[in-house]
């Protein structure tokens, strides 16, 4: 735990004998921002599951037909490999489909996948609006804006994270770099990129959905086929953001996770952890 929560505990302890036993907390996230944050969980899950099913109807990344299996899709090869090497899966009915059966809706589900994807896409756009309103009302958008000092500070934070494992192993104390802002530079880069990626996903999504009526938008992303690839890699960005995001929040402790639920934090004054 960070020392600022220890500080709070000390403060509670020292001020306890007096009449007011108040705890100092800071407002962190507006109610609408918290709602949109958690709504993203089912919405993004729905979008990714149905999106992979849609991708599968016409995969972009293919290799030459394999002489052994006839597969052209790397994920089909992975499925074959998994079924051959994982105990209990030798009897799996269609090994090339294994990966898609477990990370999307399954084969032959394009019509359902499109319906789900559009439903979740409209919800995602509405949820984006909730986030924009919430961060405007709470003023939280200012904390996400990148600054010139972020270049140096991000390097400093990266250096700190690289040294954490060594410090833990050698049991040496490693002071956390100090920031007077809500987020440190690395957090800011990450939390700034997510709304930008969300916006780009929406734009590329419309580009794929209406490439003729919105052909000017399609042209910005390099045409219909390239827009599909943009959309695909934006999904990969969301996945690669979510994994460390969840891991670091859990590593940081209850106060950070709680602040996205209740809106306030005990870490009065500054952010020192992710």
């Amino acid at each position, binding site marked *: 735990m960070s020392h600022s929560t220890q*500080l709070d505990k000390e*403060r509670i302890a*020292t*001020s306890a004998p007096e009449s*007011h*036993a*108040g*705890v*100092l*907390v*800071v*407002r*962190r996230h507006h109610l609408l921002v*918290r709602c949109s944050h*958690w709504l993203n*969980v*089912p*919405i993004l899950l*729905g979008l990714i*599951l149905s999106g992979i099913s849609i991708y599968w*109807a*016409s995969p972009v990344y293919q290799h030459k037909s394999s002489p052994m299996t006839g597969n052209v899709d790397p994920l089909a090869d992975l499925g074959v490999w998994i079924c051959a090497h994982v105990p209990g899966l030798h009897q799996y009915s269609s090994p090339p489909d294994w990966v898609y*059966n477990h990370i999307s*809706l*399954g084969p032959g*589900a394009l*019509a*359902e996948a*499109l*319906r*789900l994807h*559009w*439903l979740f896409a*409209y919800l995602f756009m509405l949820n984006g609006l909730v986030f924009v309103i919430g961060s405007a009302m709470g*003023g939280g958008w*200012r*904390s996400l*804006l990148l600054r010139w000092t972020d270049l140096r500070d991000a390097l400093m934070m990266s250096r700190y994270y690289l040294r954490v494992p060594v410090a833990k192993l050698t049991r040496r104390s490693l002071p956390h770099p*100090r*920031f*007077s*802002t*809500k987020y440190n530079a690395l957090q800011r880069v990450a939390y700034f990129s997510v709304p930008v990626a969300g916006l780009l996903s929406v734009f590329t999504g419309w580009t794929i959905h*209406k*490439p*003729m*009526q*919105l*052909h000017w938008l399609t042209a910005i992303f390099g045409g*219909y*086929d390239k827009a*599909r690839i943009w959309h695909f890699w934006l999904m990969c960005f969301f996945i690669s953001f979510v994994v460390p995001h969840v891991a670091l929040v859990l590593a940081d402790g209850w106060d950070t996770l*709680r602040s996205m*639920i*209740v*809106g*306030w934090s005990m870490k*009065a*004054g*500054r952010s020192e952890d992710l």
Partner: protein
Amino acid sequence: MNPEDEHPAQRADNTSAAESVSSRRPASFFQERPPQAMEVDPQLLRQWTRRDVLLFGIGTIAAAAGGASLLPQTTLERLGILHKQKNRPGKEWLLDKALRVDDDVAEAMYSGNRLVPTYTKSQITPLRNNYNGATPDPGYIPEWRLTLDGLASGLSVSLNIRSLLASFQLHEQITRLVCVEGWSAITWWGGLRFDDLLRAYPPTSQSKWARLESSVNLGPWGNPDPYFVSLDLATARHAQTLLATHLNGKPLTVEHGAPLRLVSPVKLGLKNIKAITRISYTKDEPVDYWAMHGYSRYDGI
């Protein structure tokens, strides 16, 4: 190190970074504001926490369960969540509603005056034969005729390909064909404008839709499987909606719907019906082959 001491006398000469930020007025509209601190009774704080954790927990579980319940029946069964075929009407209703909203959005976005981008001959890409079933035997081509129904004259008109080619001006365009599956091809088409056919053989004044049918279409085992699509007349009248007779400067081959097929670049490929044998004009929206299989009906892109 203890930068935020409780003592007011010490706070005055405290010069930590956090203090200096919070005491300074923001220099610009974009500058981050100092955190808003408040003092709360710990008892109250515990109550708030309990309430909010419960509410958000219930909400997240409800939303996740709601989202999961929308998954297709086959997916739920495979995941072992649902074993019996139980089709909940609520789920269908929501997905149908979303599909209809999306179709309405597509229709609102359509403009009869907006032309789709055209390409040069060097940008042409190969077009695959995407007949869903078997490709028909070309034996139908010599006796082929196009029948028109629902005309203002009250008559049914039957045309052969020679009379169509002789009485209408041919137009050429290189446009992109986009398939619902996600692939696309840049193709060079030649044919008559649907709009010209509508002018030569006007439909009844109440007509809003065209039903295009191919009676020669086959299923996957070579069984007869007539293909039919609905097309709104606003799209049929678009300047780039062709009844194509040529591909890459040559007459259509059987793979691409000889002798006459629809080319409507503002619609998904599945509306671009091959080997049309009948066009009927109707007041109400006709049924559509792929809409019956769960796809959208309007398919404007």
